[in-house]
């Protein structure tokens, strides 16, 4: 491992504004049809956005789709299968969307008749507009990276560890990439890649990351 990275690690964060699409679903077939039509940022909003907003619920509802099919449609088989899906395991929104559609299609083949949501409990599709900006902190060494992670907000950690998978396109994160490519520490990077991202709070995630980075070599 090099004492100083060849490039600094720049800490970023995000601010989101939610945009309403006007699209709604009242039944499982309608949900499937809308999921096909909506933008990738809408799929992001209802999967990754749900994880960011409700980390404590990550083990029960890994997406808004899982929550709605459970709480509102009370279609347990599809709700359980959707809840079992971990969005962070998918390297792209396209693959995530395809998997969600497959789960719903399978259910519709099993059970042709579906119950509609009661009035007022329709699924409303929204999408996220993301503003990404640097927070003005950088790290050139491992101790500086540790300090930065201690200081980082929950949003910044989510951006670098969870959302990063979509940007990088494989099952890794910004920290691992920097550790491996810039600091020459591929073992540390591999250990970070193995972390379970479906934790119950961002603080848990921070502690897990720190435990890896601060473990004796």
């Amino acid at each position, binding site marked *: 491992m090099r004492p100083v990275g060849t490039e600094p690690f720049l800490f970023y964060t995000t*601010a989101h504004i*939610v945009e309403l699409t*006007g699209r709604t679903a009242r039944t499982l077939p309608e949900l499937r049809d809308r999921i096909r039509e909506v933008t990738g940022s809408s799929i992001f909003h209802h999967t990754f956005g749900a994880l960011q*907003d409700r980390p404590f619920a990550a083990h029960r509802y890994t997406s808004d789709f899982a929550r709605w099919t459970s*709480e509102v449609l009370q279609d347990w088989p599809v709700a359980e299968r959707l809840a079992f899906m971990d969005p962070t395991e998918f390297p792209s929104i396209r693959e995530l969307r395809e998997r969600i559609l497959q789960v719903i299609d399978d259910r519709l083949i099993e059970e042709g008749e579906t119950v509609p949501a009661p009035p007022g409990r329709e699924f409303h599709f929204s999408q996220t*507009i993301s503003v990404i*900006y640097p927070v003005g902190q950088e790290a050139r060494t491992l101790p500086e990276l540790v300090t930065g992670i201690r200081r980082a*907000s929950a949003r910044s950690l989510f951006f670098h560890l969870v959302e990063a998978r979509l940007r990088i396109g494989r099952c890794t994160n910004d920290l691992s990439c920097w550790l491996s490519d810039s600091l020459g520490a591929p073992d540390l990077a591999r250990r970070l890649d193995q972390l379970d991202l479906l934790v119950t709070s961002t603080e848990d995630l921070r502690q897990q990351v720190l435990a890896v980075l601060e473990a004796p070599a």
Partner: protein
Amino acid sequence: MNPPSLRLDDYIPVVGIAAIEEIRGLARRLEGRRVLMVNSTAVGGGVAELLNRLIPLLGDLGLPTRWEVIRGDDAFFGVTKHIHNALHGSRVEIAKSMLDVFEEVNRANARALDLTSDLVVIHDPQPLPLIAARENGGGRWVWRCHVDISRPQPDVWAFLRHYVVQYDGSVFSAPEFSQVLPITQYMIHPSIDPLAAKNRQMGRGEIEDVLAHLGIRDDRPIVTQVSRFDRLKDPVGVIQAYRLARRTVDCQLILAGGWATDDPEGAAVLEEVRRAADGEPLIHILELPPFSDREINALQRASTVIIQKSLREGFGLTVTEALWKRRPVIASAVGGIPLQVVHNLTGLLVHSVEGTAHRIRSLLRDPAFARRLGDNGHEYVKTRFLTTGNLRSWLALAISLLHPGERIIRLT
């Protein structure tokens, strides 16, 4: 209007320094841009309360922000009251002459007010026609709709819509409250201020003082609903649920609401509630005067369980307040409540008197579960429904308006 001074740094103990620095970082990308907020009342109501918080904080962030209140006579506010009811789905007759008054008063305000700004935010329907006075090449105009317009009276909505579509964007509190529009629709949830008198931290001694003052003994679990005395809040249903629960668990009930003396319907509902309570000493019906924020804060914090058994609801900020105070909440799945109460995680959603009674018993028998719901609820509000989050959303929206059509905006 000159709202009280507030500093963003005051929120550091609540949300942490990193979150505050990130808001400052976002605001720096907008530094110097002027913001104008326009609404129809300087005091009273949720919008004025919101602006009293938002405006000084935007100023603290380096965005010069003005607040203008439109003026109108009784005839004007009579029309706007009708419009408000029509947007809520009530059938009202609004003559063309009334709409003429509405437009003329807005034209007069447009002549009197300085509407030049980089971002103009018009709150609710009363000042909506001001958009007609927008100058070419002026700033961005956004209509912030705080009311639920999902089931409006069609002719009234058609009249208003003609103005709405002239804006650069609209903002609603929840997807369920919006209409299909050809302009961009953003969503910003309502929020609560953790430093306000209604939500600030309170010591045990102060809570006990308030309870003593209100004549409530803290000698058994307290089940509370804080709501105005309105049939849509189903206070009689709450009493029925409490009585069912009381068959097997010991508790007392508090129904706390505002004074109903100037509201004939409220007075009638209050009378119904009193009849339903039938003088039972463990049912406390509290008519609180205006500005009872400290009392409401103490009552919510003293409660073992908070109920919001509404039949219809707006966003339901009383639920937000209870969640913030780590109280376990039992609430109806109506309006904006399911956005806040994730069933079995941040609270319990119910659909009947019996369901409410069942859940009161469950929570009183299982304090560990109640505590877990309360802790989750607090975290959820911290993430989504605080003043600081509201501020961040407005800043992100302002940046988004400068980058039309972009869904991922990268700033240096």
